[in-house]
């Protein structure tokens, strides 16, 4: 918990007119117009300083009024943990600042990632298969743990560098808990301002590419250090599983974001769900002819595939139960 309110990290400030600024929240899309002095005050709300002791051009009454407005629009944070959907919690660990050096490094990194993941994976698989007879299969548990941690961390790193490479504002990096049970990590980046569709797709796909690159590198190392073959194979399996899991069209995962970009929708799965419960929307779409009907069928397919989510959960839980 913060001692005092802290200004949300996901705010976008745009100049509007001579003296006013338009402040909007990336997450909630809430908007409010503020003066330069009010923004100056809001920026100083760091969670540790008493708002009424902040030095600025506002009176006590104005500060109180402004705090109420900010609170009303949910621009203030009172805890380090933010609530997402039902049973989903986010905990920010790092608020990255975009610098020229970081952007150049990210561009180079992203380019190398795009060029190297597939050759590395093919090379890794072929060399591992060649040396599989000499392999010693031990260290599976260690490989599982390493694969899980490295896979999660590097997946998010891939998104982070791709975001910086294409000049997307990256608000925060942190850990999360989905539906009370599934732990994970996240990078909160705003890709709305990026005009190029391929760049947006690359930001979403970078995490998956990173996992496949890691799988390739692990297999390559496994083929060289045959004594630890089992461990490296497990790291590779975990990362391939991680990559394919992220490619599924479950809402919020990278696969659904890539698909949304391919279709030019903001959130294709949410759109499909809303279409299922709205007869009028469906009618309007089908009135557009055969393409409309095709799109409605796609929406049905996407909603149908949302059952994969509880299936994945059930596999995870039942596998653990089955062990005992």
């Amino acid at each position, binding site marked *: 918990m913060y001692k005092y309110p802290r200004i949300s990290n996901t705010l976008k400030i745009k100049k509007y007119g001579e003296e006013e600024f338009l402040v909007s929240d990336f997450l909630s899309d809430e908007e409010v117009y503020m003066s330069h002095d009010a923004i100056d005050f809001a920026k100083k709300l760091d969670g540790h300083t008493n708002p009424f002791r902040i030095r600025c051009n506002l009176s006590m009454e104005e500060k109180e009024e402004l705090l109420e407005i900010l609170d009303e629009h949910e621009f203030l944070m009172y805890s380090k943990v933010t609530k997402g959907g039902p049973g989903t919690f986010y905990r920010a660990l790092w608020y990255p600042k975009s610098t020229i050096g970081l952007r150049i490094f990210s561009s180079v990194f992203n380019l190398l990632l795009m060029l190297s993941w597939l050759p590395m994976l093919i090379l890794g698989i072929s060399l591992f298969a060649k040396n599989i007879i000499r392999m010693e299969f031990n260290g599976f548990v260690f490989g599982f743990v390493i694969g899980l941690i490295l896979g999660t961390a590097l997946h998010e790193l891939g998104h982070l560098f791709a975001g910086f490479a294409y000049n997307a504002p990256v608000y925060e990096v942190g850990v999360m808990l989905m539906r009370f049970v599934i732990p994970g990590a996240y990078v909160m980046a705003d890709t709305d301002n990026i005009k190029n569709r391929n760049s947006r797709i690359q930001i979403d796909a970078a995490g998956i590419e990173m996992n496949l690159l890691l799988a390739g590198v692990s297999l390559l190392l496994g083929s060289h250090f045959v004594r630890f073959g089992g461990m490296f194979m497990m790291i590779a399996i975990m990362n391939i599983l991680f990559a*394919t899991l992220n490619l599924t*069209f479950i809402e919020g995962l990278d696969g659904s974001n890539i698909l949304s970009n*391919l279709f030019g929708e903001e959130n294709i799965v949410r759109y499909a769900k809303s279409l299922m419960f709205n007869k009028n929307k469906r009618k309007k779409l089908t009135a557009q002819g055969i*393409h*409309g009907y095709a799109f409605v069928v796609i929406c049905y397919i996407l909603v149908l595939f949302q059952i994969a989510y509880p299936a994945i959960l059930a596999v995870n839980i039942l596998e653990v139960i*089955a062990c005992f």
Partner: protein
Amino acid sequence: MFLKKGIWSLLIPVALSVIGVLLRSVPIIVIFFFSHFFVVGLAPACKKHESIWMFLLVFFSFIPVNVLIMIIMDKLGMLLHPMFILSLCRCIFYYAMLFSVEEIVMGVITRAIWKKQYKLRLK
């Protein structure tokens, strides 16, 4: 000429997929993969909405291929489990993965080939 007639030409990849899987023929499966682009590119019904039709086509045409992959996975012992519900969940899980990977790969290639497409909008 058959391709020019329109929507029925979309059945060509489906037929190729069934034949390729039944005969276990790799060349037919390779032809099946590339046939998607020819069919979507040539059928007038798909013009300027290639992504939508490719998604739909891949969903149906890849079913035999996915079933074959699932059979191979079953033989490798990746699906069967004494608990029936767990076997079922694993099947759904792996099928969803295969389906998503295929759709995304085909979708990205489709977008790369046909960059300008119309978007369906609710009026």
